[in-house]
């Protein structure tokens, strides 16, 4: 095992600042929490312009509804109908949304708006407040419908 002596050690603080990966089990979710009602406000101000007032979609993806359509000829894939893990919502919103200003929300705002989207999908109650633990506990309806890659799937 050669060593080229290239690069320098990464410090714990540097890693903590850059490592924004959230596991599907909620690992690495930050401290803090946010409620559905806080999320409703954040969403109205920062998300609705692209995703519609109720997450019905627009310039951005539809985020709500579609449960029961996934196995039909016209599936509607949304957070509520398709996403397997709730912590991914925190991960994705924090890293990529709002599309015009990614990584601009506070952790509390990300919790809140995640809670709001889950609520719009009927997956948490209107009075829910989510934190690391409770977000990880949300059971997503489509969770068990993912399978491995079975290709090659056309035989000759």
């Amino acid at each position, binding site marked *: 095992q050669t060593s080229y002596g290239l690069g320098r*050690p990464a410090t714990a603080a540097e890693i903590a600042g850059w490592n924004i990966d959230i596991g599907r089990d909620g690992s690495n979710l930050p401290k803090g929490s946010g409620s559905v009602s806080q999320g409703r406000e954040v969403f109205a101000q920062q998300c609705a312009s692209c995703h519609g007032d109720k997450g019905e979609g627009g310039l951005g993806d539809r985020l709500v509804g579609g449960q029961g359509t996934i196995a039909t000829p016209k599936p509607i894939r949304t957070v509520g109908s398709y996403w397997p893990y709730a912590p991914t919502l925190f991960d994705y919103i924090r890293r990529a949304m709002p599309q015009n200003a990614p990584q601009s929300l506070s952790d509390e705002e990300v919790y809140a708006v995640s809670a709001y989207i889950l609520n719009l999908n009927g997956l948490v109650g209107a009075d829910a407040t989510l934190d690391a633990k409770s977000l990880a506990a949300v059971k997503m309806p489509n969770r068990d419908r993912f399978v491995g890659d079975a290709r090659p799937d056309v035989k000759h």
Partner: protein
Amino acid sequence: GGTVLGARASVAAETDNLPPNIPEWMKAPGEPMGSQPYGAPSPFEKGVVKNISKTLKQYISASSRTPLQELDGIITPNGLFYERHHGGVPTIDPAQHRLMLHGLVERPLIFTMDDLRRFPSESRVHFLECSGNPGYSKPYGKTASDLVGLVSCAEWTGVSLKLVLQEAGLKPDAKWIVAEGADAAALTRSIPIEKCLEDAMLVYSQNGERLRPQQGYPLRLFLPGFEGNMSVKWLRRLHVTAEPVYSREETSKYTDLLPDGTAREFSFYMEAKSIITRPSGGQRLGAPGFHEITGIAWSGHGKIARVEVSVDEGKSWQSAQLQEPVLTRALTRFRLPWQWDGKPAVIQSRAIDETGYVQPTLAELLAVRGENYFYHNNAIWPWRIAADGEVTNALA
């Protein structure tokens, strides 16, 4: 009066440059040497640009296609390489760009671009293809580019990811690496450790020069044969983990929905595929007689072993000639001489790779996958040639 005169003048101008006359471009010096410090195509080729839809809802998470039917050989010039971004194209100062390598490693490290360029380098020609090239449902595209223009091929230079991982020291439970881009999407994909140790590269150059911003300047991951979005561009972070991160791009997005409502996750490889680029949709055979049939074939699983071409609606197939060198996980140019008798015809190609896999028909794929699958469509695509020479999509 005016129109007729105009027409005459233009006829005269054209004849002026033909034999026995001296063409005007021989009668005065051309542009001085160096008038383009970085060159550009001829103004007569201004129509040869990326195939960009004008009707997208937004252009930040979007794609453009290589004009395959305009190109020859296997190298895609950097200016025409297909684009797919999820957060637009960042403008990154290479002096301020860093790659962080952390997680299940002995020594978490941070690299500058200078550090990475000091590692032993390697160069390889590989295709890159977007997973959704094309979808499974109508309307299907008119041209080869509309259909499968989300594939390009270049000579990539960089350092073997394996070498860089050795520098940090993998821990025994290291099974996946989560790669993250420094773009506005902070795009995140999990790569199995086997691929990382097999032929994955950290790439900084493309066709000799540094990566273009659209292809990840100053640094990208490159995973030969895997769906394009996994070769994370503007790479800033490699997180060595025990299991995949299940990011939005590997749950909501790049999963393959089957008719029964289950969805395949972590579907990495691009299977063998080919397309005839000439004659192809939107082109026109000027007259019966000799026409070469040519196109490109490729496979994420290795080398193309054979390409077969049919000119009789799939009744019979002939082996096309493959342009040497046939390289692994690279475009391979194929050619078949053909005499067109001037009658309507349907022509198509099918690729067979070194694993023996045979490119399937669209019907075969649809039978297994249904129309909602969306990604990994590697169907044979036939072109219809009309009696007047017009070429159109035979499945559209």
